[in-house]
């Protein structure tokens, strides 16, 4: 059974139930139950019309759940409270679900969880495993999120930027457990791009593809990080890179630049270099300037300092770095790298060791510790 196809039907089926008068929370529960039943029943008895099957079963489950509750709340009231189901396409329903699940009233973790369940069709257990929390905790997080958005009208226009932030978070979390969150984020962003023509949606999709294409080379067999310059570029997925570049070019042609397009442009320039030494750092610096103008993010300016160090030499990079706040995450790691490039290995070794203590994750800490150890072997620190 094609689980991806099954899950891709989720938002459309929820949309139909909502248009028939179910409230979002109940519709989402009913569709989730229908998905579980599909997983059970379809392998032996595949339906001719998968979506029709899901709608029928989900609607039955919704009616059963509503009847069970009818002493407290009559169905007639429920139907009356909802707007008349107007004509709407699947595409509209899908888009509305993205907006609802990324509603600004939700915390980032709630928006992520709700998006993965209601739009992605993942089970609570799968989401819990991916984020390493107990299933009961994730169930509560999702149920609270549904309560938070219960007053939001389904047909209300939403903000694409909030949806993109949620999808970016899912992608960047990477890979843990059974569910490949990066692949799931790409699937959801692809689906969003099909529902709405927006250059930043395309930009984010391109960004994800241009990073995902290099995933195999980012870590060694033992799980340790491999720096971009040391990656085996023959392991990059060239078809995925080509797709990312094509999507990015079409987005840039719309002449409405945004941060995801600019980030994707930087990723594309890295992907374009057959050897690290052939990287077009001058253009990358220019894109960082664009990005800094768009976001004013200190992290962007930190990455820009690295690029300046490559384009104009480590002294220029250190100068650019010197203009930034030294309490930024990864500041010390960048300083260490630039000092090493400048030939000052003792300073670099000391800074790598210091950066390792400030690392935000274990892979980065181990990487930085190894850099310090490598330089300390070459030129031992003064006693």
């Amino acid at each position, binding site marked *: 059974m094609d689980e991806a196809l099954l899950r891709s039907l989720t938002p459309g089926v929820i949309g139909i139930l909502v248009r028939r008068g179910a409230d979002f929370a109940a519709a989402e529960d009913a569709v989730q139950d229908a998905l579980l039943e599909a997983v059970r029943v379809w392998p032996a008895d595949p339906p001719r019309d998968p979506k029709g099957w899901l709608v029928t079963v989900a609607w039955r489950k919704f009616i059963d759940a509503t009847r069970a509750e009818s002493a407290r709340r009559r169905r007639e009231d429920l139907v009356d409270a909802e707007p008349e189901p107007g004509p709407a396409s699947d595409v509209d329903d899908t888009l509305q679900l993205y907006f609802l699940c990324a509603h600004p009233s939700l*915390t*980032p973790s709630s928006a992520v969880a709700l998006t993965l369940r209601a739009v992605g069709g993942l089970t609570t257990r799968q989401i819990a495993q991916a984020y*390493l929390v107990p299933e009961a*905790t994730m*169930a509560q*997080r999702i149920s609270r999120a549904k309560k938070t958005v219960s007053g939001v009208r389904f047909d209300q226009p939403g903000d694409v930027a909030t949806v993109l932030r949620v999808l970016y*978070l899912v992608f*960047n979390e*990477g*890979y843990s457990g059974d569910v490949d969150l990066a692949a799931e984020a790409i699937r959801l962003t692809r689906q969003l791009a099909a529902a709405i023509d927006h250059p930043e949606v395309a930009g984010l999709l391109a960004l994800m593809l241009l990073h995902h294409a290099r995933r195999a080379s980012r870590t060694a067999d033992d799980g340790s990080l491999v720096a971009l310059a040391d990656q085996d570029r023959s392991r990059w997925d060239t078809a995925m890179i080509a797709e990312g570049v094509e999507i990015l070019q079409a987005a840039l042609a719309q002449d409405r630049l945004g941060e995801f397009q600019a980030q994707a442009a930087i990723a594309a320039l890295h992907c374009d270099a057959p050897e690290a030494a052939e990287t077009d750092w001058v253009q990358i610096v220019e894109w960082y300037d664009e990005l800094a103008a768009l976001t004013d993010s200190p992290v962007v300016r930190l990455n820009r300092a690295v690029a300046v160090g490559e384009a104009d030499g480590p002294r220029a990079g250190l100068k650019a770095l010197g203009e930034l706040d030294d309490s930024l995450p990864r500041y010390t790691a960048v300083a260490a790298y630039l000092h090493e490039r400048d030939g000052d290995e003792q300073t670099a070794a000391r800074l790598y060791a210091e950066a390792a203590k400030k690392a935000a994750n274990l892979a980065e800490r181990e990487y930085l510790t190894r850099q310090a150890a490598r330089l300390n072997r070459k030129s031992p620190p003064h006693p």
Partner: protein
Amino acid sequence: MAKYLLLKHYRGAPAAVNDVPMDQWSQDEITAHLQYMRDFAAKLQATGEYVGEQALAPEGTWVRYDGEGKPPVTDGPFAETKDLIAGWMVIDVDSYERAVELAGELSAAPGKDGKPIHEWLELRPFYGNAPTITE
């Protein structure tokens, strides 16, 4: 979305404000304290921020490898000066500020005379996943 460890100490933490040991509380004060701890965990379960918790016995042993073919060496009991962990709770929250807020709430658990203990708790971030996008 970050995990934090809240550590409670038998000893080794700075002194609490209401620093009277539990064996000198009334039965009702003990009941109120335990109820507060259960309520706190239940509340975090309901907000979707709870990951887990365990209490640890105060006794323990130092253990180390002693070479090929030899049983590990043990040493104990712990010296009185050792930092001694009493228990842990893991939470999964949206921000550092939220983690501090929750730790403060846990530290307000009632002790002697039903007044908050103001116990010092150790708050430690977990390492997260390495982000995919770094350039």
